[in-house]
């Protein structure tokens, strides 16, 4: 009954979505009175979809095997967390999650955006509804999560054990919040272009959505990367895999947009460019969804199983991107940039940032999709890490160098290019470069430059705080500094991980000692262990370097439903890096296959990523706080802000 009820709720929501589009168009054509109905419609629509999603979680929680999706993706003997997470660990469920976030952010936008001019608001809500309809159609016509199974299954098929991990349980929702949050920026751009009101007010309405999405994307990518690092057991954290690139592309677009929307809000400049980036941001989200959900890149087979679905998403994304670009081409001629600026100025630096990020985005896009094109031309090729590192590494380092000067430049006309901290940072980087040679470190060019630039960048990134009272610094500036400092830390971690990692592969018998970098590891032996739905062989390794020993217990796990072997890496974190141990096949007589790494400073990658995310949060919360105080002041002075409509 619950499944049918939820299915009905989805159809009802789809109807409301259609209504929202109609009313939005009517309001745009001058029927002002009608537009009042849009807000409640957006809210009820979101409520219905959230109810349906909650129902799906309930069905997974109860392991209702009469629902086809549950039977195909769950199992009664699974830990509760993964029963719940299983609701979005599959195609249909994840598309319902996508729609939940889409309608949810549409409703939040309708409810809380009060300063935007009425016609632009109506046009934006119509655009949001237009996106919604396509994805409602996709879900209801080709990916119904509530389909029944008759007769119902005796037992479920289980969830892929690799996905049974807390990191991955929360990674997709986080990423989707970022992906789909960008839809509001997309709709706002379309709405503003249609009504010809591209300007600072629009940028201020768009900014929290861009910033919020960017925070979720950053956190989601980090979580996914850390999951790959410790769960896949290969010791790597980024593989330039198509699915990873699918999440990176919206992030790069959102990063560029975040910087240009700031220029539009503060200086009323870069109008056309900002609109373009807003369109590209959500377009990249749709491209990413297409790449992941169609399986066209990771596995030809997943695509072949249901080509209809891949084709459906491809149609949707072509339609929306095409329509948005048409509106851009048709309307952008009327948009005039008003505030001129000189090349050496804050705007100039941000233009450089945007162009570099756009080039990087284009290269990731080309590198990811080129194999498909080549296959169409009859060539089977691979484009992997060597290509991406070669072409994107140098550009990323130029971006890092830009950060030495950019944030301290003045708006419009340039003052001095370098601030005192900028110069100090540059000197520190130069000194570091000399030191890497003097110490005779054997590094690639990119590693050497990365290790040199990072400490200088850390110093230079503090420049905007120079001469300020730290307690009175506006939160957005503090947030920017923290995020840029995080980038320096991240860069140092990536360069060090790449340059200094020590790897040992051994076939070891109990009692043997293995040297890994500065560590001595003693293999104590193995023992069998069992979990709720797996059994495992667990090795015990005692690692020491002078000080007290650390115990590492990597496991090789066997899941019975579906039958899968996974390896659980063991990590030990010290102040200057991580030890990483994986156990492979073996036996008591022949010995066990061990793969051991010492990864100096790898922890800086996660610390840096955390700081970048934190910086975004500080800026977002700071802006909310400022807005709240402004409203309080207005209320206190006896003036009531009128809603635009």
């Amino acid at each position, binding site marked *: 009954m619950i499944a049918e009820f939820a299915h009905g709720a989805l159809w009802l929501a789809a109807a409301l979505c259609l209504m929202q589009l109609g009313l939005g168009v009517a309001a745009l054509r001058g029927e002002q009175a009608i537009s009042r109905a849009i807000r409640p419609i957006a809210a009820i629509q979101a409520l219905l979809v959230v109810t349906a999603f909650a129902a799906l979680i309930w069905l997974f929680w109860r392991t209702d095997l009469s629902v086809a999706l549950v039977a195909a993706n769950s199992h009664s003997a699974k830990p509760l967390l993964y029963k719940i997470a299983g609701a979005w660990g599959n195609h249909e469920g994840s598309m319902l999650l996508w729609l939940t976030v889409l309608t949810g952010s549409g409703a939040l936008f309708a409810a809380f955006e009060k300063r935007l001019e009425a016609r632009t608001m109506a046009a934006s809500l119509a655009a949001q509804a237009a996106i919604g309809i396509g994805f409602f159609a996709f879900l209801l016509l080709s990916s119904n999560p509530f389909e029944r199974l008759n007769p119902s299954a005796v037992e479920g098929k289980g969830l892929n054990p690799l996905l049974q991990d807390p990191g991955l349980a929360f990674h997709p929702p986080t990423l989707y919040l970022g992906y789909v949050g960008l839809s509001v920026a997309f709709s706002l751009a379309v709405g503003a272009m249609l009504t010809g009101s591209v300007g600072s007010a629009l940028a201020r309405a768009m900014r929290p959505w861009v910033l919020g999405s960017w925070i979720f994307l950053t956190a989601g990518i980090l979580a996914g990367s850390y999951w790959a690092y410790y769960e896949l057991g290969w010791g790597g954290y980024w593989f330039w895999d198509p699915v990873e690139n699918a999440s990176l592309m919206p992030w790069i677009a959102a990063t560029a947009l975040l910087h240009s929307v700031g220029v539009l809000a503060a200086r009323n400049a870069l109008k056309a460019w900002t609109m373009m980036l807003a369109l590209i941001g959500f377009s990249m989200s749709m491209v990413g969804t297409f790449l992941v959900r169609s399986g066209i890149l990771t*596995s030809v087979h997943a695509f072949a199983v249901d080509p209809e679905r891949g084709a459906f998403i491809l149609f949707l994304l072509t339609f929306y991107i095409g329509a948005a670009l048409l509106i851009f081409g048709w309307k952008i001629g009327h948009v005039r940039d008003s505030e001129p600026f*000189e090349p050496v100025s804050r705007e100039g630096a941000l233009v450089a940032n945007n162009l570099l990020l756009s*080039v990087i985005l284009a290269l990731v896009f080309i590198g990811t999709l080129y194999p498909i094109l080549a296959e169409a031309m009859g060539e*089977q090729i691979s484009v992997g890490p060597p*290509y991406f590192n070669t072409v994107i590494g140098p550009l990323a380092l130029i971006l890092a160098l830009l950060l030495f000067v950019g944030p301290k430049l003045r708006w419009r006309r340039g003052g001095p290019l370098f601030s005192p901290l900028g110069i100090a940072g540059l000197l520190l980087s130069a000194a570091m470069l000399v030191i890497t040679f003097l110490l005779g470190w054997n590094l690639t060019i990119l590693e050497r430059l990365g290790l040199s630039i990072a400490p200088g960048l850390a110093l230079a990134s503090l420049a905007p705080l120079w001469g300020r009272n730290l307690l009175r610094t506006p939160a957005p500036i503090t947030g920017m500094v923290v995020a840029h400092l995080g980038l320096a830390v991240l860069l140092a971690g990536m360069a060090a991980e790449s340059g200094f990692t020590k790897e040992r592969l051994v076939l070891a018998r109990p009692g043997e000692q293995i040297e890994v970098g500065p560590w001595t590891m003693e293999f104590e032996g193995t023992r069998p262990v069992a979990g709720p739905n797996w059994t495992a062989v667990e090795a015990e390794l005692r690692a020491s370097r002078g000080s007290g020993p650390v115990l590492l217990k990597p496991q090789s796990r066997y899941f019975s439903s579906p039958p899968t072997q996974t390896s659980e890496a063991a990590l030990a974190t010290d102040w200057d890096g991580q030890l990483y141990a994986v156990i492979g096949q073996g036996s008591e007589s022949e010995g066990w296959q061990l793969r051991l790494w010492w990864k100096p400073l790898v922890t800086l990658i996660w610390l840096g990523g955390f700081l970048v995310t934190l910086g975004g949060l500080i800026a977002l919360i700071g802006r909310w706080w400022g807005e709240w105080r402004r409203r309080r002041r207005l209320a206190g002075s006896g003036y009531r802000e009128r809603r635009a409509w």
Partner: protein
Amino acid sequence: MRKLLFVIGLGLSLPLAAQGSLAPADYANRQLEDAGQEARAAALMEELRCLVCQGQSIADSDADMAGDMRHLVRERIQRGESPAEIRDYLIERYGEWVSYRPAPERPIFWPLYLAPVLLLLIAGWMVRRRFRRPRP
């Protein structure tokens, strides 16, 4: 094509599986004694694709065929072959699909290496156009 490769791969890996991947002479999971040779082998293995997996390098894969290829790479490096020669040998045998590094000398890959140059030129042209207008 890929299915064919899969079958070839399966065929290749069968004798190995029978032999047991832990035999002492097997370099699938054992490093070379010479650190310099091992570093060259490791760098090459990172850039070779496991043909029966979904987007993994042979360095990271648990598949038998990947182990077979790791053995082949280490053994040839030990015999003194250069990484480029080994890569060419594997490309000849399995096609371009096996190498993650697009070879700049093959025409099919030229667009990939022209793209950054062209994109930077376009970006430079956009900047020039932006700032050429006379300032008030």
